[in-house]
């Protein structure tokens, strides 16, 4: 489970990037954070991963405060970034092997890696191909495989579908749906309201560091989520 309790971040230049965020993502749930650039989505992810320290509040992963015990908290979370940039001169399998071992999975064989890559729909020829030669969609799949292999109960995704073609994005979401069904708590930051709508159990809209709206799946399917989102965005522009 992921929890943010009054989580705030003010940068040294005075910019309040996150203002008292309260959020809870439960096991078996996909929570999509929507918002314009600079709304605080990535800051939230960075705080959960302890890449930056909060200036107020707490970020908890499975009840563990990430600032108090960052190493322990990271045992329970996987991360997929916007542009999965792996080691370009390593093959997909070598990258998986490196990050799996780094995450504590030391007994996996080559066949295990192949099996995981097949499961996310990566083509066989990409298994031993250098990552720098893969398309962005393929790299995202490798990145997702890394997250899956860790088998952490929580997954953080930062714009995972950005730059992907519709087919690749759709495949990615299908995989995420499968992970949710396995009981993972998934927090996904995205601009893509249509993808969010198709997969999320809950969506939250962020604006200027604040979570200004949260809707459950039942609620946003009844409302015109696009319009609500666009209204918030419009206000942000004005």
């Amino acid at each position, binding site marked *: 489970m992921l929890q943010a309790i009054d989580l705030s971040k003010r940068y040294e230049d005075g910019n309040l990037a996150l203002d008292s965020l309260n959020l809870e993502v439960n096991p078996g749930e996909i929570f999509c954070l929507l918002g314009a650039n600079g709304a605080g989505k990535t800051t939230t992810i*960075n705080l959960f*991963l302890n*890449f*930056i320290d909060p200036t107020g509040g707490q970020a908890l992963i499975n009840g563990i405060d990430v600032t108090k015990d960052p*190493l*322990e908290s*990271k*045992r329970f*979370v*996987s*991360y997929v*970034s916007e*542009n*999965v*940039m*792996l*080691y*370009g*001169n*390593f093959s997909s399998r070598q990258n998986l092997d*490196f*990050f799996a*071992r*780094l*995450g*504590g999975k030391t007994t996996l064989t080559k066949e295990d890696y192949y099996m995981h890559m097949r499961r996310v729909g990566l083509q066989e020829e990409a298994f031993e191909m250098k990552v720098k030669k893969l398309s962005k969609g393929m790299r995202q799949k490798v*990145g997702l495989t*890394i997250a899956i292999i*860790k088998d952490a109960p929580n997954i953080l995704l930062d714009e995972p579908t950005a730059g992907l073609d519709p087919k690749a994005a759709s495949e990615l979401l299908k995989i995420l749906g499968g992970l949710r069904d396995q009981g993972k708590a998934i927090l996904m930051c995205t601009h893509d309201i249509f993808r969010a709508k198709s997969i999320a159990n809950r969506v939250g809209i962020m604006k200027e560091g604040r979570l200004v709206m949260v809707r459950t799946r039942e609620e946003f399917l009844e409302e015109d989520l696009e319009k609500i989102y666009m209204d918030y965005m419009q206000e942000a522009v004005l």
Partner: protein
Amino acid sequence: MIWHIAKKDFLLNVISVRFIIGFLLCLLIIPFTIIVNIDDYKNQMRIYQIDRQEAEKNIKETHVYSGLRPVIVKPPEPLGIFCKGISANMGDEVKTNFGQKPIFPEGEASLRDNPFLNSFLSIDFVSVITILISLLALLFSYDLFTREREDGTLKLNISKGISRSTFMAGKILGVFIILVPLLVFCYLLSFLIILLSRDVSFSTGEWMNILILFIVSLFFMVFFVLAGTFISSLVRYSSTSIVICLFAWAWFVFLAPAIINYGVESFVETELYENVRYALDEIDRQYYDIHNKKSREIQENEKLQSRSWWNANGGLDGYFETSGTPLEVMEFERKLKAWSEPLRIEYADRKWAVQKKYLDDLTRQGHWQQYLAWFSPSMIFEQVSAGLCRTDMYAFLGFMDEVHSYREILIGHFKKNKLFDSFRYITAQPLDQIVPFEEYYRISKSGNIPDCWSNSNNPVLDLSDIPVFRYRPVSLPVLINQGLLRIIALLAGSIVLFVLAQWSFNKYDIR
């Protein structure tokens, strides 16, 4: 986990362009440098053997003790193949003169047949290591964190639940396991060439010196790896890091040594050697004034009308050899030498006071250079290396101290055996064949000159009881002791850089 990260970096580095270029540079430069230095060593050895044969020949042909001026020829240092130090600027032979203590060796300083080529071929193994390994260390470490941040892999690594310390240690170890084999390769390649050349052989002790040199090279490399690591932890972009690293490299390897040497020469004053020479000439003049006065006094006391020699050779250094000289003159010369030689030694001591001050000034400059070298790891490394290869200032001073000690032993031997008072000091002619004036005139007018009236026909000296100089190179424990503080400084600098890098990376914005 550290090893896992290090292994990944090793695998990525080993296929990188920088490794291939670094390897090729080592492969090309090291053999060239070693071959040139072996050639220099062979030339030095050739010069040493010629000088030594000449010195032995001269001493074997000595007829009188006043002509005994053992020339000490310093054998070339085989370890100089690795580090020439100051040996390339020093001569190889020292004359043990009673009239003046030697300050610098004389003889052949140039190593090559064509002196115009010296500056183009003067680089040695340690210089190559100083330039190349420090550059490679920085090239492999300047982007340790910046590249991972730019590629986005830093976030992925840290999100896996490893501490920043572990990550940093793994990254540093990754650089070590690529650079240490490269350094080992450089040494093994040089050993191979040395062994194949068959012109150089090292004693067990010298192999130990080389082993210590290798360890110090490792420390030197570690310093630059950690400097690159620290710089990489300070900046966000690899392009900024490489610029700072290259500046640091140029500063430590070229600018700082040049500035230090220039600063020491400019600000630590020394007497001009011309002034020293003038002062020495002045002391010599005083000596000759007294000498001439005493000479006249003895001549008057001996009631000697004239000084006639049938055959006489001599020089300003106290050498005087005569044969066929009348007994009265011979007695006069003997008395004069018995009186003048101890005085000459006393005046040599006076001159030494002037020379010593000059030498102390030069040594003080050398010491200042060594104190200021603490600001440049490459200077520290080169000084420690020169110390280990016995080609530094201390090795030279130690050798000269031994020469001075030998001179004292020789003087002691002369005094103990009353050689200054003896006829053998000035003549090799049998004493029973030295005739008074009247007889001298008779024989010389008759034209029937005995063979013993010619210096060259008289027997040479029996030198079996003369003390012999034995060169004792400084032992390894002494060398280590001399360089220990500087080795510790290199290590301390590395520890400080490691702590700074750790502190800086803990605060590093990995986004």
